[in-house]
């Protein structure tokens, strides 16, 4: 049977390495390992498996609080979702996936091509609109994104669409003028439609390291962020940053993206996520 001194520093270091390489961040890992070392000293844990179980439940405890699926509240139509995030995280593709889910649930969905900046962003969303059977409201490239959002709200209300999803341009959270533009988009939406945006979804890439924390902090201090979608979990990255983000900011994690196809979006499940962390 296992003795008292079975947990060597080597074992603890291996476990620490597994957590750090899952992008949990050294601060979160140090905090978790401190609790583990304390339990080991009190002889409450005497083998690697028990340590992993203890870590699994500690992390699950944090994530279960933010496991809050998106519910389409019975508000004045359209239920309005604003999609935001830094460049390349998967906002446009996630919108397509959401549109597909809502359509399958029987909702009428419209999309707003409010990324008027990036090359062929409007065309990209239009193709997804075609594929998912959603009307896309757009202006010319270079138009004011707030104007597109405004126009889309008008149009969605006129057509009694159940849901409107607004795509915005990728932007680095450290660029003040771009964050100002985002605030303006939100203001215009709120002014035009009572209670909107009903959901502001921050799209984070699971391959991102500690910078995701900075992204979550700065985006949520600029406008009210009500949900997170974590994309690209079909890769080898574990998305561990979401643990620190949950613990610090308590933003509900709505969805995880697991591929490039329209069906590759699932509601976030804390248990599945934690199991995958320890795979």
């Amino acid at each position, binding site marked *: 049977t296992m003795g008292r001194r079975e947990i060597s520093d080597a074992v603890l270091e291996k476990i620490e390495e597994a957590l750090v390489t899952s992008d949990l961040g050294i601060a979160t890992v140090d905090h978790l390992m401190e609790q583990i070392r304390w339990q080991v000293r009190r002889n409450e844990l005497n083998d690697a498996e028990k340590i992993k179980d203890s870590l699994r439940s500690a992390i699950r405890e944090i994530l279960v609080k933010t496991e809050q699926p998106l519910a389409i509240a019975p508000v004045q139509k359209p239920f309005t979702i604003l999609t935001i995030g830094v460049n390349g995280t998967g906002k446009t593709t996630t919108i397509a996936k959401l549109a597909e889910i809502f359509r399958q649930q029987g909702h009428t969905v419209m999309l707003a091509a409010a990324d008027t900046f990036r090359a062929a962003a409007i*065309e*990209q969303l239009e193709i997804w609109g075609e594929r998912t059977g959603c009307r896309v409201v757009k202006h010319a490239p270079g138009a004011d994104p707030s104007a597109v959002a405004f126009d889309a709200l008008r149009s969605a209300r006129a057509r009694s669409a159940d849901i409107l999803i607004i795509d915005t341009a990728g932007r680095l*959270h450290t660029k003040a003028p771009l964050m100002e533009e985002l605030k303006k988009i939100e203001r215009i939406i709120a002014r035009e439609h009572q209670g909107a945006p009903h959901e502001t979804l921050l799209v984070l890439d699971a*391959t991102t390291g500690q910078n995701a924390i900075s992204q979550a902090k700065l985006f949520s201090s600029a406008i009210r962020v009500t949900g997170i979608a974590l994309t690209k979990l079909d890769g*080898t990255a574990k998305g561990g940053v979401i643990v620190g983000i949950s613990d610090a900011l308590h933003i509900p994690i709505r969805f995880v993206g697991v591929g490039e196809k329209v069906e590759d979006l699932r509601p976030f499940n804390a248990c599945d996520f934690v199991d995958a962390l320890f795979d």
Partner: protein
Amino acid sequence: VLSNGFNKARDRLRGKIELTSGNIEEALRDIRLSLLEADVQYGVVKSFIAQVQEKAVGEIVDTRVRHGGRRLKVSPGDHFINICHQELIDLMGPVETGLRFGSRPVSAVMLLGLQGCGKTTTAGKLARHLAKNKRTPLLVAADIYRPAAVQQLKVVGEKLGLPVFSAENASPPEICSRALQHAREIGCDVAIFDTAGRLAIDEPLMQELHDIAAATRPENILLVCDAMIGQDAVNTAETFSRRLDVTGFIMTKLDGDARGGAALSIKQVTGKPIKFLGMGEGLDSLEEFRPEGLASRILG
């Protein structure tokens, strides 16, 4: 925005007359924390700290011998930081930002990487950079999957006044070989292949990259990497460079506050040089790699 691990280490050694293995160890812990926060991979941090420790201890012995136990002109804190900084610069270098041009009429640059890292935008930046350096580039739209990817590259080409080759109903390897032919026909001397984003674990898509390379023998195979990538940078870089003869890499989105530690990890693990840095969404935002700037940013 930048962590203060660097400064913490320097402060810790303030007032110390000399570096000892004792006070170095604490400073090294600060540096370790800073590097992990900067997304440098766990194993890479471990070997970096060991290398710095060895150098610093070696330095103590050296300075004692040279100065006969007298005080150093530079404070021990600054001296230690300089060792770390220099070690990082040495590991990230040497500077090899040149692209290879073959003896055939059209050379090729193949861009590859994970989804969304900035390949299409970087293809445009590279084309502009090459054109400024008296080359005649042809942009090649080899991403046949992403909605409007071809259109995106065409818009980029239009903005730059540079030609873009695309073909309907053709596989990426066919597109790229035909592009080389087309380049010769229109007098271009370098083709830049913009490929679809892909996971390194996606076997059919990795085979596609292999097929493109086999069909076109690119002189340059550049892995494009997002500066904000975390610990997975090593897995990704290793897998890509095992399947293909990667000749270098480009780090994008350095205009944000991502520390970019992946640059050190990737360099350590693949041994390939960092060629360029993407510093913005604009097509003029491409710089040739210099280790000093990135080294300070990673150390914090």
